[in-house]
């Protein structure tokens, strides 16, 4: 079992952001966190990494407390949070994924550079290794961050809105890599507000908005009733029976 959360509340400095989380994830499965902006998706991802407090219930990552198994977890942050003017190349960014293995003062080994090169190749950006990170397109930057996480060879990969502002080519490249990963036994947890994508890519969906509203296979979770309760006033019922979600 990769993840097991039992009636868990998570938050910062004693204030809960997300409550009543009940979910589990096994190796080779893909879990999508769905919900509106500010629902607590990023908070839940950081809870898995041990970067937010568990305020109630229990949370286990690889059978241990969150934060104990960080070397087995990979993390892909939102690309928009990074400074495009920062003077680093794509290859240097990917190599950061190996830093924990290299250690503090030892020089970079050939094996680490090879792993970084292979990871960059895997996301289809081997030719951009020497380019400055900030000069790449948004989608390419997202792929570089994915390559950085791959270079660490994680057993659980956490992705925060990996398809936000990403072009179609990059989205396809990312999806291909994610499918290969789950086939190889890696567990995935990704947050998205694209429900169609969640339905396509995930084996399990966790619908959250301040609390968990539903957890299970996409077909059972992404129903009009569940979405209406999770999205509240942002869910509008059309006369023909369909439900439309409106996000500010």
């Amino acid at each position, binding site marked *: 079992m990769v993840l097991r959360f039992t009636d868990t509340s998570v938050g910062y400095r004693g204030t809960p952001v997300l409550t009543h989380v009940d979910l589990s994830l096994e190796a080779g499965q893909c879990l999508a966190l769905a919900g509106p902006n500010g629902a607590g998706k990023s908070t839940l991802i950081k809870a898995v990494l041990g970067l937010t407090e568990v305020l109630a219930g229990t949370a286990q990552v690889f059978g241990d407390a969150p934060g104990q198994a960080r070397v087995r977890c990979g993390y892909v942050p939102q690309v928009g949070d*990074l400074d495009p003017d920062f003077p680093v190349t794509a290859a240097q960014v990917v190599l950061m994924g190996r830093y924990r293995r290299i250690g503090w003062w030892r020089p970079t080994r050939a094996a680490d550079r090879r792993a970084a090169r292979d990871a960059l190749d895997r996301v289809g950006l081997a030719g951009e290794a020497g380019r400055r990170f900030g000069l790449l397109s948004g989608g390419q930057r997202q792929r570089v961050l994915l390559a950085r996480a791959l270079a660490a060879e994680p057993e659980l990969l956490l992705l925060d809105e990996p398809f936000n502002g990403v072009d179609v080519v990059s989205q396809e490249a990312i999806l291909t890599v994610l499918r290969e990963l789950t086939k190889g036994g890696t567990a995935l947890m990704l947050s998205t507000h694209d429900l169609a994508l969640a339905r396509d890519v995930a084996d399990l969906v966790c619908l959250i908005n301040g609390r968990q509203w539903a957890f299970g296979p996409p077909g059972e979770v992404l129903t009009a009733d569940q979405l209406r309760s999770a999205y509240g006033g942002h869910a509008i019922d059309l006369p023909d029976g369909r439900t439309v979600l409106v996000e500010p």
Partner: protein
Amino acid sequence: MILTVPFMARAMAELALLALICGPVGVFVFARRLSFVSDALTHTVFPGVVIGFLAGGVEGLVVGALVAGLLTAVVLTLLTRSGALSDDASTAVVLTAMFSIGVVLVSRESSYTSDLTSFLFGRLLTVTPRQIVETAVLAAVILAMLAIAARPLLFRTFDPAAAAAAGYRLFWLDLWLNVIVALVVVAAVRAVGTILVVALLIIPAAAARLITARLAAMAVIGTVLILLAGYGGLWISWTASVDHGIALTSASAVVLLLVAAYLLLLPLRRFLPTRGRSLSRGATPPTRKDSPHELVG
């Protein structure tokens, strides 16, 4: 040549050592946007220098600076950690509080007013061999500290959330870098003073960034710029005072040359590719998370 004069040679040796540390450290100060923090450190070291001088004369100066610098490094890291204050506000509070203590201490003793200028602007031409040895020791410590943590510091600077996710303790990394900056200030304070040292930390890296986007190249160019400005500044101040009778302090000549180098390199910026910048201007600006502990999603 001016370097055949012993005190000029010593001044140049001191500047060369400072160039060696300010080049690489300046890159991190620039990338981590710690310019203001370095400025604060130079000001907070000031009361330490004064207290050290009052207690132990010139010899006590470095000890006082060291204690004040390390103390500030810890306080600044703690203040920015809680997230209650922004980096800027907490830094400004510490800066003004400590600097005013220094001024109060100096003004209590009227005989120290002449030394006030040397605290603030340094005495480059009276550098002693012992002082050079002390700077060399500090330089070795600083470069070792930087070498040990260069990779984690780079990771933390570029992507704090991912560095924390990878298991790095951001507080300790921030403290580590602040201590490094404090040690640089201590190393430089007697030669160039508490005010001008900030120029050695910030201008070379900023100037280097105008012509390169590679971190290693920035460090090397920064060091070379300080060496050139150091030699040029010493030559100008020598020529001005010996040949023309104009009193020009060497340290300010060095800093003026650094500023001139920055201004000369400014037009070269247009030759660097800037697609990232123009892209981000068109799209929504990236929400920068400068505070190390702003991890709320």
